């Protein structure tokens, strides 16, 4: 048996657990570099005695958009919250396994969790700007980490707002409350706030579920552009959205990774019956 067929055999037999992607060095589907940014190995997570994530393993490519999809309650959000260790703040949670960020296990004791969260930013489901001014929102992380002040702070805030495609809409009203913005603008402000501290990975937790179609289109557009400089992981239960924005798709069901691969492959030719039923809308 050749190496290739052996690995294919493994994919077939282990399709309920680990699915490995073949490494490709070629430029394909707009993915420039295909390098593992995050590697998850045998990740398990419990809340009290509920086993939420069961033996998850997958690797997330650098400078790509990876969509995590699956029916509600399958552990999507919990999974991305494991990538910046935000599950740790919930009482009674327990994690085993490893998550490597650039080859370093973020669950090892030496890791400074505050530095980690600076490198792995997050945008939440509902826009949650602080009840402060627009400027103070974007500057929050920079101030917390003492990254900039004075003129440099203003410049960095402007850059973050530009990157989040919000600058032109708010440049004359930076002192106004962030709560005066529309829902879509608030969400882009939250993205700017996350971008300001110059993270490497950005996690999106259903970022459009509270937004109207026009605002959604803007955010999706933005996510597409962000992968130039960042690695993006997005949770979504919207199949069209996953198809539109992502390069890779992971399908989770009841805390297990069912299938993982290039978005095109998964949507056109799912290997697993569950995936097929999900993307054809038979359940979900």
């Amino acid at each position, binding site marked *: 048996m050749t190496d290739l067929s052996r690995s294919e055999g493994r994919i077939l037999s282990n399709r309920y657990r680990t699915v490995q992607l073949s490494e490709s060095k070629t430029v394909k589907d707009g993915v420039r570099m295909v390098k593992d940014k995050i590697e998850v190995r045998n990740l398990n997570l419990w809340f009290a005695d509920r086993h939420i994530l069961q033996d998850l393993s997958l690797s997330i490519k650098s400078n790509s958009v990876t969509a995590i999809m699956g029916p509600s309650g399958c552990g999507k959000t919990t999974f991305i919250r494991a990538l910046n260790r935000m599950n740790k703040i919930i009482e009674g949670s327990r994690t085993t396994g490893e998550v490597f960020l650039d080859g370093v296990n973020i669950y090892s004791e030496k890791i400074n969790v505050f530095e980690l969260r600076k490198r792995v930013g997050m945008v939440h489901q509902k826009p949650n700007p602080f009840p402060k001014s627009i400027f103070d929102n974007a500057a929050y992380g920079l101030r917390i980490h003492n990254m900039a002040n004075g003129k440099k702070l203003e410049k960095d805030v402007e850059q973050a707002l530009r990157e989040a495609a919000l600058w032109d809409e708010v440049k004359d009203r930076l002192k106004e409350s962030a709560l005066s913005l529309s829902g879509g603008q608030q969400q882009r402000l939250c993205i700017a706030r*996350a971008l300001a501290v110059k993270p490497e990975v950005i996690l999106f937790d259903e970022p459009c579920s509270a937004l109207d179609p026009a605002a959604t289109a803007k955010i999706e557009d933005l996510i597409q552009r962000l992968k130039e400089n960042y690695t993006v992981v997005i949770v979504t239960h919207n199949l069209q959205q996953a198809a539109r924005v992502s390069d890779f798709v992971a399908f989770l069901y009841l805390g297990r990774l069912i299938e993982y691969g290039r978005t095109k492959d998964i949507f056109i030719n799912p290997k697993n019956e569950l995936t097929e039923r999900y993307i054809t809308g038979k359940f979900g």
Partner: protein
Amino acid sequence: MRRIKEKIIEKILLFSATSSILIVFFIIAFMFAEGWSAINLDFIFGLIWHPKTNEFGILPIIVSTIIVGVGAVLIALVIGIPCAIFLAEFAPNWVRNIIKPSVEMLVGIPSIVLGFFGLMLIVPFIRDNLGGRGECILAGWIILSIMTLPHVISISEDAIRAVPNSYREASLTLGATKWQTVRNITLPNAKSGILASLILGMGNAVGETMAVYMVIGNPNIPWIPTSILDSVRVLTSTIVMEYGYMEWGSPHQHALFAIGVVLFILVAIINLMARYAIKRGMIGR
């Protein structure tokens, strides 16, 4: 038949509701009727309170009342706010389940018991270690702060907990530490609730009678205090110590009622301020 029953029940409920308002109204009306005639500038700003010569100036008493109330609230602030922050943000559940009921039990201690405790322990301690009579402003502060503490802690804790969790999450995911989050996000958003707890505590302290009466000395001729070891009189303690020998219908009686009116207005203003603080906090959110 059923409609008549409905109507009767409705009327009974209406009667209960109005009667409670009427009771309050009658008390206020009676107090004002009895005391209003004694209230004038000499009464409010007069420096000498001497019933035997019909001199009724309550400025020293008002000043003492405010000093005692503010001081007690400041002590409650220094102890209570950190405690509320700890309970709301840092304490694991089991610790909270011990501390919170214990703090709330403080409310249940009758004020006379606290006063007696103050008289037996705090007053001698101050007399022996700091000098003076021992019955003084400082003793009043300590006893009153113990009494206001549970209110300050429980209302501030509620205010801190009411800050939406999404704010905390947002701050933590940006890499802020817990304390940075508390200082920059949680506390500024709970500010008005915390302020309200302090103002309400102030209202409690100003209106409190028995415990404070037992530990602050109550000199026969009140003066404006110059030291926290001075004996003073507050509005409530003045009524308590003099209603026993006042003559009905005398200017003395009207003056005591007038003190009641002043006290009522003072507490009403304080409560209105607290209400305003709470309302402003709601709009801010």
